[in-house]
């Protein structure tokens, strides 16, 4: 999930060796989220900052979190005000707190398959999983859960937040 190639990409991005366009797929949506899923908080922070430094802040986990959870204590304004202090200070601390929360914030759909609470809302809200778990063969139920809402539509959630995905 977290590869040396990716780590090298982060390093290259910080030195400006990798064009912004090529970083897109290595951004928060895949990169930092992978580290979150792996429980690697510090690496996730670095990955998010690598994206942040490209100027594409909308792709950072922090930005997405601010957009999706405006009630949380990570207001967009503070993020913007802190933009000048890229190497430390409140942004890092906020991100650290946020990622700590995200790593812990997992909902188990069935044993061995967990998603973040945001992803749970996006994919399973209003679906009577308890009922279908009882009336479907177990393997079919797993496929049902895994395929439902598997494409991110509007209101994106960083990818690969699954913990212990089959």
């Amino acid at each position, binding site marked *: 999930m977290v590869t040396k190639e990716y780590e090298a990409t982060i390093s290259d991005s910080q030195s400006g060796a990798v064009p912004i366009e090529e970083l897109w797929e290595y951004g928060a949506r895949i990169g930092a989220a992978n580290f979150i899923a792996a429980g690697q908080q510090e690496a996730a922070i670095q990955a998010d900052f690598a994206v942040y430094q490209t100027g594409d802040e909308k792709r950072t986990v922090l930005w997405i979190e601010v957009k999706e959870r405006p009630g949380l204590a990570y207001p967009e304004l503070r993020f913007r005000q802190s933009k000048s202090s890229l190497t430390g200070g409140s942004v890092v601390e906020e991100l650290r707190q946020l990622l700590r929360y995200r790593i812990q914030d997992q909902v188990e759909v069935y044993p061995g398959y967990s998603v973040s609470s945001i992803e749970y809302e*996006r994919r399973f809200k209003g679906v009577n999983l308890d009922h279908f778990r009882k009336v479907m063969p177990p*393997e079919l139920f*797993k496929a049902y859960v895994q*395929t*439902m809402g*598997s494409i*991110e539509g*509007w209101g994106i959630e960083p990818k690969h937040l699954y913990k212990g995905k089959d």
Partner: protein
Amino acid sequence: MAIVQKWGHQIGDRIDSPAYVDANFLVYYAVGSHEASSFQIMTRNVMGDLLAQGVTILTSLVTVEEAWWATLHELYCRHIWQPPSPVAQCRFNRDVAKRHFQEIMQHKDDLKKIVDGLRELRDKGADIRFIPEGEKSFEVCQNVPDHMHKYNLLSADALHLSLALSEATTLITFDVDDFQSVLDPSKDLTIILLP
């Protein structure tokens, strides 16, 4: 024996097999938005009942193509950071898609998930099939102009109806406007309208 409509679906309602599903059904099932819409929730519960009841699910290449287009629109909205809307959907055309094609197609794996999901379900025991097969294609196509004329349907909708009539007992669709007036005592089909 007749074409009849059934409005809505409650969890546990019996669905007669086989059931033909339309493109919106595939899209609402597979695409997850930040705020799950009532359509998405209903579709996922209907899919649960289809699978739990062992209903044979029928689809077609034309359904998948329509689902791909709708998904492409979702990916475009994600790309331009604007929420999908009926207005945006109307404005999304071939030229717009082509202008942003390289960026959108970075997410081609999302398009694959439409069919991959069906295959995954089939591999785990669901009975899912593409229709028509072989010679039936001619019969299905030959009936389309008649359905267009008789039921006041455009070609794509008439093709879906023709496909459903060829092999299905149930047609599940979100296209309430076009299918609510399709009534025929001489044919046998239950149209589940998901409003």
